[in-house]
């Protein structure tokens, strides 16, 4: 049977004329899903990279205190907060930002302003990378699905 692929193809084309369109539709949906995942992951990576820029600038410039903060109640770094809001799922970003805001004064009191900012950035980037990992796991499973499709669909 393996030596007559043309015959099989002709027979399939005669008996199931709509099959190719169904397969093409499935592939189009699959490609669409993969594209959405790729865009999501790429956006999160870009946000993480852009978010890291102020850390480098702050470390280089040695800024003495947060622009928005005060001695009594320090404000979290604005860019880090935006990064969290942008990159994390909405149901998680609010509690995480609140938790970090709650802990930040204690860190600042114990270790100083600069350490507190670095700590906040470390938490923000660590959190984003964790959730990015979860999203990439989803992307990997889509890739696995695509491999299965290529292997088992008669294309």
């Amino acid at each position: 049977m393996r030596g007559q692929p043309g015959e099989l193809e002709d027979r399939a084309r005669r008996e199931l004329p709509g099959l190719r369109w169904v397969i093409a539709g499935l592939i189009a949906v699959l490609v669409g899903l993969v594209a959405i995942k790729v865009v999501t992951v790429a956006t999160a990576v870009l946000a993480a990279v852009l978010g890291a820029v102020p850390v480098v600038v702050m470390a280089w410039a040695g800024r003495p205190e947060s622009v928005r903060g005060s001695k009594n109640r320090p404000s979290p770094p604005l860019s880090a907060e935006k990064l969290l809001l942008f990159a994390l799922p909405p149901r998680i970003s609010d509690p995480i930002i609140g938790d970090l805001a709650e802990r930040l004064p204690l860190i600042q009191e114990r270790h100083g302003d600069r350490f507190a900012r670095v700590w906040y950035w470390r938490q923000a980037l660590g959190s984003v990378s964790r959730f990015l990992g979860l999203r990439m796991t989803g992307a990997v499973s889509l890739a696995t699905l695509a491999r299965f499709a290529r292997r088992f669909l008669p294309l």
Partner: protein
Amino acid sequence: MGRGTALGPFQQQILYVLLRLGERAYGMSIWQELEERTGEAKTIGAVYSTLERLERRGYVSSRMGDPTPERGGRAKRYYSITGAGAMALQESERMVATLRMLLPRLGAES
């Protein structure tokens, strides 16, 4: 024990902390408790992503609290262990105990 009910070490730690903290369990309190008891410095994101996984599996449930000024007007998300979560934890303990019982026998054989 089905493959789907297996818990990782960090998942187990979080479920124990949820049992210990009861109604006071939210992101920061869970994180602090873990840091104090285990001495490991994880990020807050590691705690939340694990809680998300556990919630997706039905082992943990969550509800939003009220926003407070000391949190910059952000609300807490409170977590609690479900019946399925408690059972999964018991099952993990049982599995570890079973495996531990094999150790002297393995030692005697070698």
